[in-house]
């Protein structure tokens, strides 16, 4: 809770920076603030006391704290990475304030215990992101991305709200625990519109995490938005949306899993096939990463499917989101530096192995991790998902996942091949700021480190 308050306060401080003229020191303030939030979060983790706040609407239990930790680590790296892009921007302050508010919403999504806070959290997270996606004012692509994101986001929110209203009608409550009790005490006597509500909420959440067949907005938005904002969308937002998804469906609707698990199976299978096959024919790297994020969403959904009633899967989702977020930060960091002036095609990476050997190595590690090749974090993330899936009756899904991952290796390796085996058109090294390089190297090292001691990290997340 304290971390949550610190982050929201930081957002307000960032807005004041313009007025009180401390723009120059804003960046260190934010970074230190995030570190402080992380420390406070960690203290709550070691001395757990799960007091519900705001009339039982938010409760920072251990799961919420763990997800908040992942979000804060990613946010920390993101801010250092983003500073080079925003340093000379006259609207730097506004960007940072919006991002901090989005992170506030993201943290709220990890800890909600009431439908009200779920809705408010999603909107606090999404509305700043609509603005950020459209923040290149003169660029029509960026405008279009923001517009599409807004329309799709509010469309999904409307579905979410209709679902919430129907569930409220059946149960007479917005509280997750009360809904859970209602399901277990009234089994066999639940009105049909309750199930309609659950399905509508499922559709809305699938929109938010961009699972097929509700994924069509994601590639466009990822491509049009400024690269650094795309990095935020595919890490912090994804983690938060999954935390929300998990809390909603594994705590509240676990009792009616027969209804939604069948729909979820279809969504997972479609996401795996569509994302990997479409990504293989894309030429824009940002679009490829968007499709890759859809396929990673499918993997995380598999965990929710695998173990609807146990804490085992919480562990796997946390590990996956950590591995995926860190890998994505590296990948987007390199992408942001490489495509600063040019287009976003694979050709931009040609000869990067000779031009910027360090960046190329880090990008290779990130790609290997996203593809799930051993001794990287991504491999063990997928491994934990597969172990969770082995206990279920959905073994065919496992085979599908392995097959589509093999397709996935193809498009991740396209980047690596371009970096090492294709001649560069211009032999100039890409200029990268020291801070960005540090973040890229550290996140790449973390990816390897987590891959070397996966058991240690997984044990940290035991509840």
């Amino acid at each position, binding site marked *: 809770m304290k971390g949550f308050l610190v982050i929201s306060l930081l957002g307000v401080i960032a807005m004041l920076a313009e007025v009180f003229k401390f723009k120059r020191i804003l960046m260190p303030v934010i970074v230190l603030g995030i570190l402080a939030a992380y420390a406070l979060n960690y203290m709550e983790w070691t001395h757990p006391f799960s007091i519900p706040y705001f009339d039982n609407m938010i409760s920072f239990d251990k799961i919420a704290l763990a997800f908040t930790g992942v979000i804060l680590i990613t946010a920390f790296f993101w801010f250092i990475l983003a500073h080079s892009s925003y340093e000379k921007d006259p609207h730097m302050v506004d960007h940072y304030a919006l991002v901090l508010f989005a992170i506030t919403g993201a943290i709220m999504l990890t800890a909600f215990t009431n439908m009200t806070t779920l809705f408010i959290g999603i909107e606090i997270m999404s*509305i700043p992101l*609509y603005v950020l996606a459209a923040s290149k004012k003169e660029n029509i692509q960026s405008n279009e991305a923001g517009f599409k994101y807004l329309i799709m986001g509010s469309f999904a929110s409307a579905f979410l709200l209709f679902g919430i*209203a129907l569930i*409220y009608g059946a149960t007479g409550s917005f509280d997750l625990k009360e809904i859970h009790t209602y399901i277990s005490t009234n089994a066999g006597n639940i009105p049909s519109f309750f199930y309609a509500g659950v399905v509508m909420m499922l559709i809305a959440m699938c929109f938010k995490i961009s699972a097929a067949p509700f994924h069509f907005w994601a590639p*466009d938005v990822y491509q049009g938005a400024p690269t650094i904002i795309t990095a935020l969308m595919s890490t912090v937002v994804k983690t938060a949306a999954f935390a929300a998804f998990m809390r909603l469906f594994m705590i509240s609707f676990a009792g009616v899993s027969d209804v939604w698990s069948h729909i979820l199976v279809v969504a997972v299978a479609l996401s795996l096939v569509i994302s990997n096959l479409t990504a293989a024919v*894309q030429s824009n790297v940002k679009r490829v990463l968007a499709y890759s994020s859809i396929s990673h969403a499918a993997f995380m959904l598999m965990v929710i499917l695998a173990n609807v009633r146990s804490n085992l899967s919480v562990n796997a989702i946390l590990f996956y989101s950590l591995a995926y977020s860190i890998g994505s930060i590296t990948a987007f960091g390199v992408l942001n530096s490489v495509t600063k002036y040019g287009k976003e095609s694979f050709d931009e990476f040609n000869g990067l192995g000779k031009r910027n050997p360090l960046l190329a190595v880090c990008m290779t590690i990130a790609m290997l991790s996203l593809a799930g090749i051993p001794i990287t974090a991504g491999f063990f993330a997928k491994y934990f998902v597969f172990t969770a899936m082995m206990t279920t009756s959905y073994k065919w899904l496992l085979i599908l996942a392995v097959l589509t991952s093999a397709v996935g290796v193809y498009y991740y390796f396209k980047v690596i091949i371009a970096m090492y085996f294709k001649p560069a058109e211009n032999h100039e090294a890409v200029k990268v700021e020291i801070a960005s390089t540090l973040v890229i190297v550290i996140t790449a090292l973390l990816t390897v480190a987590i891959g070397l001691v996966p058991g240690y990290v997984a044990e940290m997340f035991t509840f």
Partner: protein
Amino acid sequence: MINGISINYYILLSAILFIIGSIGVMARRNSIIIFMCIELMLNAVNLLLVSFSTLHNDARGQVFVFFIMAVAAAEVAVGLAILSMIYRNVKSIDTHLLNNLKN
């Protein structure tokens, strides 16, 4: 039963409004009309929440409606800002002109 009318009719009415709204979002080309259709969807939800709130004799549903109204206003404010930016760039608000993002 609210005032002698079965709750099912309330659900039916809001569902119809919601479906009209969602068809509008998918089928119309004018961005302003799309925003109106989203508002229609949200107001269908508000209607449903208020009627359930009366049915359960519980004020929480109506409080939720306030949240939805506030958020919808924020969303439309952002939406219209983005829209005016688009208009400045392409001199139109037809969604069919927004096809610059492709492979």
